[in-house]
């Protein structure tokens, strides 16, 4: 599903250039559930953003579902994100003026699905998250756990091949974190590839494989069971 070869990425700020990814090779098969761990600043989010086509890389090759992703036009990139990738962020990133249902329906809006139909589908996903009665609440009326479940529903609604989660439990207490992980595991069980960046060992242990990044290189791949 995901295949990267010798990916390099530097951030250039003024005179300085910071070499963040130093030749990453990684294969992730369809349906895998993988965690990425590493010290702060090691380049985990940078890698995940490249995988999600939110950012580009300097050299190397990235194939997503067999398609070479390299310097795409923003239109192509947006369409590809919409069809292939679901995002779950640490800070939820819900749209503040849309209620839970409309937030979930957003990816379908960009596919020009009619409003009635996409809201109906959004309701189904909210029901699966146990949030049907919160459908018409704005994000600022929801708890952190509820917000993250709305975000997960939103990531799922476009039937993506891959879900990328950057510290999805980072802003949650341990009990809610466990609930969110249960959800993500269920999702993975339906065949969707899942990649989670995390700092927490017990979260990583619930994935099948943990990739450790140190200073821009993959230094270790651990199979969990």
């Amino acid at each position, binding site marked *: 599903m995901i295949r990267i070869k010798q990916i390099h990425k530097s951030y250039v700020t003024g005179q300085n250039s910071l070499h963040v990814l130093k030749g990453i090779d990684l294969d992730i098969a369809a349906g895998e559930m993988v965690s990425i761990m590493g010290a702060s600043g090691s380049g985990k989010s940078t890698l995940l*953003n490249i995988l*999600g086509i*939110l*950012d*580009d890389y300097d050299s190397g090759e990235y194939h997503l579902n067999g398609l070479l992703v390299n310097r795409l036009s*923003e*239109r192509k*990139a*947006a*369409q590809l*994100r*919409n*069809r292939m990738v679901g*995002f779950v*962020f640490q800070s939820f*990133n*819900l*749209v*503040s*003026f*849309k209620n839970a249902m*409309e937030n979930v329906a*957003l*990816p379908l*809006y*960009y*596919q020009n699905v009619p*409003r009635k139909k996409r809201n109906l589908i959004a309701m189904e996903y909210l029901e699966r998250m146990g949030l049907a009665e919160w459908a018409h609440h704005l994000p600022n009326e929801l708890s952190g756990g509820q917000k993250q479940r709305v975000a997960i529903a*939103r990531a799922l609604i*476009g039937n993506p091949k891959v879900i990328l989660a950057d510290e999805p439990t980072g802003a949650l207490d341990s009990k809610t974190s466990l609930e969110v992980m249960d959800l993500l595991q269920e999702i993975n069980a339906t065949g969707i590839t899942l990649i989670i960046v995390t700092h927490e060992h017990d979260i990583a242990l619930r994935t099948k494989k943990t990739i450790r990044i140190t200073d821009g290189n993959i230094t270790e791949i651990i199979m969990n069971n």
Partner: protein
Amino acid sequence: MFDLDRWQEIYHVLSKNKVRTFLTAFGVFWGIFMLVIMLGSGKGLQHGVTQNFGDMATNSVFIWTQQTSLPYKGFPRGRGYNFENEDAVALAHSIPEIKYLAPRIQAGGFMQTNNVIRGLKSGIFNIMGDYPAFNKIDPLNFISGRFIDDLDIREKRKVAVVGTRVVELLFNKEEKPINQYIQIQGVYFKIIGVFRSKRTGEQADQENQNIYMPFTTLQRTYNYGNAIGFFSITSQDDIPVSVVEEKAIRLLKQRHSIAPADESAVGHFNLQKEFDQMQGLFFGIRLLVWIVGTGTLLAGVIGVSNIMLVVVKERTKEIGIQRALGAVPRVIITQIMTESIVLTTFAGYFGLVVGVGLLELINYLLGSTGANTEMFVHPGIDFSVAVTALTILVVAGAVAGLIPAYRAISIKPIDALRYE
């Protein structure tokens, strides 16, 4: 197609900071408001001034006699002379470019005493002897009856056409003036028509005191021989009146032994020239108004563009989220441009409505107070001007949104998402 989500977002953006939105909108409102008021006032001025032309054919020239200023063929300078009936015949014969030729003679020498009497009532009025053609050059607005016709001229009938002021002064309110007799300088005339001036103010008051009778009647009755006071002439439709003016003056000079170089012996007034000058003036006013008006509008539109830039900056993260979820650049660009267009168009439309409303109010007040506004009549703007203004607004709104829209998508989605 109506897109509820789009409008929800526009509402969210514009209502988030209401004071700011209001102030921005006010800039545009004021621009279009000023444009409408200035254009409308210009129109009012134009109407006022052109109404003083009445329905007079603008391709007219008026020619009268003055004293000669050069000696010629044995005549000394400073000689007076009169146009005569034969001049009219000669003009009509030798200048085919003439459409209407109306000789006129005015009965004079009565300014001190009442010259028109009916029973116990009397008044001082202007007495004109005219041909039917005069009513073609400067048509009167008849309340009842008719103007002088060819039969009146031929039979030298003692008939008169009078203005409303004449009727007011010589008749009781309930009396019908048509077919009644009035005594003009001692001779009885039957009234065959009553008119009210189309002009405004002073000029209207003057005209309403006029009495017209057949030219031939006046010449005969009051012993003017074959003298003519002045000529009103219009040119054929496709010929500039200056051609006729030049030919007529040359012919008249010849017939009266006036030096061709004598500039002052033949008095003349070219209405066309006057009218064209006036039109030029109004065109200038309109041009100035558009420049000033669109300048004001532009300032408002730049304000909108500025605010949209601020909005885009504030919403960087939100736009980043939308892009991460699959919003293509076109979606973002149309969204921001629509916001800008909506803001400008609403504000501008409001300015248009308030401006037109104010003009209507002025119109109403002018009408209802009966103010003597010779120079300011029916202010207002054309429908096409309103449509033009609205089109300008929509385009301006789009242009104002363009830069902010491209700013929004010029940054990478990940940088937008990370924006604090």
